């Protein structure tokens, strides 16, 4: 995938102001911004060790000269020289070490500390409160810096992981691993408002919260230059309002569409509606800790009762791709139609349910979703279908706000199937498996536990290369499609529209919108 | 003397004037009623006249218990109302009933006539058992000249005069001995006014009531009253029998008041000795020193500003008058 425009001029035309739809970012600091809107901006302001190929999603060195390891545990990273931050500070080994340490250090409370968890010494830079939520405060962490990061020379450093991980080079393309200048770390709040980047663009003025972020070409950037002279992020709180602005010609690119306007957009914009399978996973988790859901045949029956496409068409205007496996179709190693229970088959569902001993009479199936995000609608359709197919009446539990909902998930208190979603942390298929289903994993809300699955993941992690690792992960997926710890629903689909004056629209298979690479028609 | 059914001694009502942001402090008072001594005998009608704002209504309101006196005592049939217990007071109050000025506002528009007239029985359930109330209400309506069948009608279905009758019926419900009429006819048309006055007189004869009759219309007061008290700025300035006040007024204010009353006889035009007072009534919040009338009085001398004249019988006045220079002056009838 990639360019949505037939223009043969691969380079695209440089110049102009690209006006894009954006939501309010949470942070513009690489160590803190972990949400889509933040990353879309950060990626133009900052650059990291690797970038992803727009077409294939394969990692390619960006600032890194090389990233090598013998044992998949200790990695040596060499950095290209000559790169600087906008304030003139060099981008060197110190820059990366400093940034990663900053992100990992507990008291800094940076959201992306999560991504540093594989690096050795992470436990020592954060500390746990001795009495949970009790009155005592958490003590100072034992160390200020990650023991796994070692500078070798100005342009070289090593990273030691706590466990071997073959996918490490892929992960460092994530914006949480981008470098930050010393001046930025020293005054993080200020840097958040007026970032000091090292990427192809720099901020003009500072972040106008809820209104706009204006980027202009950075003159310190040594790499491949961005196409537009300026990128203007117009910030919207409501997709519908954004779409109205797009329709009024105020925006050149809109990376998403209001769910109900998809068909209309397709009819109106034709080719200029850019579609691509996405990697956001929506699933219905199974509370395996409850007796009713212990039997995998019950889970299979429920999954077989659902006609995903019909829900997608009705509720989402066809904007999603039904899931037939646990790994995003766009990912290396993904296979089609691995999940045999992910198609509607009422007969089989009934049979399986019967075999499992049926559903307790009179008991209502409680379907959970968080409030205010529109999930209730499709979940209701799911309930309707289950009711129609298996005669199980349902009840929606959809009034928890997100925070409380997540706490319910964390404490495994769902009393029935629950909707959740998952976005990849890095473009490596492991991201869909380990965090969600390995025994005791943080986000394993179903409490699924399968020793065979765990060991397959282990083997995949220490495989010599990505290619060698993939078969292990695929076997792990095979276990999932049989056990169904969660019912896969669908994959997001990229549905972006762009204006007539866009020359070449570029969508990165991994890091999504790449506004720097999108060019405008020049006349 | 048991003949006196109602007596006030130095009755005073001051309405405090306050000022202050958080803590209010009193900066003065409206001396609405400022020491009034009156006696009402059984079967008698005492008229009270005076200009607007002189404290007539305030006095009436204290007498019926709507307002607590600032000081002074009120005796009903010899009992000091401020000294007796609550039950006694309640019983004493029953003896004085009020007929109000405006028949349009003094009847609750959402209550039927029966409810209005019967309300006293509900408030004092011991007076009459429930079963007899309706009959009694109809009796009362008949007594004041209304059709007893109209018991279920609402006030707005009646004319002003009829409404005033309803008010009178309500006042009669508890068999009081004293009825206080606060300008009962001033809101009525002349042709209706006579009907109500006739009714009041009839009731007095039949039931032996005592009236305190407050009015601004001096001719009406003269018609109905046995004795008349003239009020000015919270005080009684002259009191006497109807004849004494109307024929031989001794206080300049009374004289001016009487002379100002237009007489419905064109023959007297230009012949009457009219005293046209200048200026307005001073504010009761800040009454003049000494004699309160001195600011408008043609007789005023230095002493009037220094010394307050007592309400007393003086050399040239056969009845109590609060003027240092009280004397008779022929007013209207000079030329008769």
């Amino acid at each position: 995938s990639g360019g949505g425009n037939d223009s043969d001029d691969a380079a695209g035309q440089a110049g102009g102001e690209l006006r894009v739809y954006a939501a309010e970012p949470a942070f513009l600091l690489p160590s803190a911004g972990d949400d889509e809107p933040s990353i879309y901006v950060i990626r133009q302001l900052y650059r990291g060790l690797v970038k992803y190929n727009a077409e294939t999603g394969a990692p390619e060195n960006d600032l890194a000269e090389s990233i090598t390891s013998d044992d998949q545990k200790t990695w040596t990273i060499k950095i290209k020289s000559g790169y600087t931050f906008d304030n003139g500070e060099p981008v060197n080994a110190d820059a990366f070490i400093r940034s990663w340490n900053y992100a990992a250090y507990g008291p800094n409370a940076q959201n992306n500390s999560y991504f540093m968890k594989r690096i050795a010494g992470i436990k020592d830079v954060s500390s746990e409160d001795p009495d949970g939520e009790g009155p005592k405060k958490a003590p100072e962490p034992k160390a200020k810096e990650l023991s796994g990061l070692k500078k070798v020379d100005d342009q070289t450093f090593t990273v030691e992981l706590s466990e071997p991980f073959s996918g490490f080079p892929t992960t460092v393309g994530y914006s949480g691993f981008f470098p930050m200048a010393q001046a930025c770390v020293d005054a993080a709040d200020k840097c958040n408002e007026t970032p000091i980047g090292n990427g192809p663009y720099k901020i003009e003025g500072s972040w106008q919260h809820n209104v706009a972020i204006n980027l202009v070409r950075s003159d310190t950037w040594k790499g491949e230059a961005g196409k537009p002279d300026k990128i203007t992020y117009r910030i919207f709180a409501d997709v519908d309002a954004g779409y109205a602005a797009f329709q009024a010609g105020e925006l050149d690119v809109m990376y998403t569409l209001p769910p109900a306007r998809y068909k209309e957009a397709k009819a109106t914009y034709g080719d200029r509606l850019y579609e691509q399978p996405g990697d956001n996973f929506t699933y219905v988790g199974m509370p395996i800790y409850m007796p009713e859901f212990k039997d995998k045949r019950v889970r299979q029956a429920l999954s077989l009762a659902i006609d995903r496409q019909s829900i997608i068409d009705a509720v989402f205007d066809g904007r999603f791709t039904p899931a037939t496996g646990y790994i995003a179709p766009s990912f290396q190693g993904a296979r089609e139609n691995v999940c045999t229970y992910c198609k509607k088959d009422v007969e089989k569902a009934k049979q399986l349910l019967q075999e499992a001993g049926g559903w307790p009479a009179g008991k209502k199936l409680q379907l959970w979703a968080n409030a205010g995000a529109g999930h209730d609608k499709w979940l209701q359709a799911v309930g309707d279908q289950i009711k129609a197919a298996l005669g199980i009446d349902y009840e929606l539990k959809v009034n928890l706000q997100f925070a409380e909902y997540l706490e319910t998930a964390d404490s495994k208190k769902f009393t029935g199937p629950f909707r959740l979603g998952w976005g990849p942390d890095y473009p490596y298929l492991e991201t869909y498996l380990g965090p969600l289903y390995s025994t005791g994993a943080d986000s394993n809300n179903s409490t699924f536990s399968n020793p065979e699955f765990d060991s397959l993941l282990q083997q995949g992690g220490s495989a010599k290369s990505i290619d060698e690792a993939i078969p292990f992960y695929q076997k792990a997926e095979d276990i999932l499609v049989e056990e169904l710890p969660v019912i896969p629903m669908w994959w997001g689909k990229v549905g972006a529209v762009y204006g007539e004056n866009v020359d070449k629209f570029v969508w990165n298979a991994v890091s999504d919108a790449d506004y720097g690479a999108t060019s405008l028609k020049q006349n | 003397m048991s003949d006196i059914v109602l007596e006030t001694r130095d009755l005073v009502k001051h309405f405090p004037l306050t000022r202050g942001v958080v803590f209010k402090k009193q900066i003065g008072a409206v001396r609405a009623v400022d020491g009034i001594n009156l006696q009402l005998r059984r079967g008698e009608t005492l008229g009270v006249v005076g200009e607007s704002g002189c404290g007539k209504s305030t006095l009436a309101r204290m007498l019926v218990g709507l307002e607590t006196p600032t000081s002074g005592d009120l005796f009903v049939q010899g009992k000091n109302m401020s000294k007796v217990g609550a039950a006694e007071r309640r019983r004493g109050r029953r003896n004085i009933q009020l007929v109000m000025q405006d028949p349009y506002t003094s009847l609750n528009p959402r209550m039927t006539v029966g409810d209005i007239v019967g309300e006293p029985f509900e408030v004092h359930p011991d007076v009459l058992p429930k079963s007899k109330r309706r009959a009694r209400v109809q009796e009362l309506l008949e007594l004041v000249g209304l059709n007893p069948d109209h018991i279920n009608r609402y006030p707005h279905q009646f004319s002003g005069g009829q409404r005033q009758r309803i008010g009178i019926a309500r006042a009669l419900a508890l068999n009081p001995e004293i009825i206080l009429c606060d300008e009962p006819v001033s809101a009525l048309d002349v042709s209706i006014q006579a009907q109500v006055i006739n009714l009041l007189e009839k009731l007095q004869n039949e039931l032996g009531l005592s009236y305190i009759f407050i009015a601004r219309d001096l001719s009406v007061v003269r018609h109905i009253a046995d004795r008349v008290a003239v009020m000015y700025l919270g005080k009684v300035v002259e009191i006497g029998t109807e004849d004494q006040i109307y024929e031989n007024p001794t206080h300049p204010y009374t004289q001016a008041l009487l002379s100002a009353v237009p007489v419905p006889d064109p023959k007297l035009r230009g012949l009457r000795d009219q005293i046209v007072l200048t200026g307005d009534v001073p504010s009761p919040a800040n009454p003049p020193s000494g004699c309160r009338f001195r600011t408008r009085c043609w007789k005023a001398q230095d002493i009037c500003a220094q010394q307050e004249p007592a309400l007393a019988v003086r050399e040239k006045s056969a009845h109590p008058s609060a003027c240092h220079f009280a004397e008779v002056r022929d007013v209207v009838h000079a030329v008769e």
Partner: protein
Amino acid sequence: MSTDVNVKLDALPGLDPNAMPLQVKDLHVEFRTRNGIAHAVNGVSFDLRPGETRAILGESGCGKSVTAQAIMGILDSPPGFITGGEILYRGVDLLKLPEAQRRKVRANRIAMIFQDALSALNPVFTVGFQLGELFRKHRGMSRKDGKARAVELLDLVKIPAAKQRVNDYPHQFSGGMRQRVMIAMALALDPEVLIADEPTTALDVTVQAQIMSLLAELQRERNMSLVLITHDMGVVADVADRISVMYAGRVIEEAPVDDIYASPAHPYTKGLLESIPRLDLKGQELSAIKGLPPALTNIPKGCAFNPRCRYAQDVCRQDPAPPLYQVSPVRTAACHFWKEVKGDV
């Protein structure tokens, strides 16, 4: 002040300087309300000579104010409509004048005082503004001159410290003073006719005396004609030259003041006079008129007074209503039995 003559007014078509200042002929006014048509004025006629005081007497609701409003041309319309008659100012029928000219007559030639001075003065403007406005709008004076004239006027009606008080608001004045302000306003442009609609009803007797003597004085000074509307028989006896007694929207008796008091020719007038408490009748029952005035939406057939009348006979209960009989060369009465009434003392 009387030197201010409004020249433009002389241009009124058909103006006859020798004609009477005001003549009302067979005036009819009705109010079209939800509850039906209220016939508030049903054929009122009277005239007014220069310097004369004409009293219009009648009970509440008999149409006195409506008559006055119709003359001034300030009837609320809708619901009020003049359905017939003429109002002549020195021979000019005001009802036929275009609004712009009619407006010039108001205040300049015919002015009016209202019953309730508090509500008749605009609460949100100073007295000076409201007085000065007249000079500014009718005489084209400047703001300052207007104010100066306002002070003069307040002086004229004996308001103490007029210079300061001119900047006060109506609510800062006492009832009597407000009424004096009203009088000042009415006299400002030196009108020929003044209509005073119950100018003292809301006031105390002492204040009433002040106001009435002030009015009389001013009237005398200017040789102004006065229409005095009231229901107070005493006030009328004091000041009126001629009296029109109204009942249910109709003039039922018209006579010089002495005649009426001496020998009323209509039972209603007679009843009114008798119901006033009188010294010589002390201790006796007052003679009251029984019953109530009729609703103007439903005036009885024939003589409107017949249900309350002790003289009433069958002829009184049938249409048409009794005409105005000429009782004497100077007086009329609308009663079939005026002779009996007059004779019955």
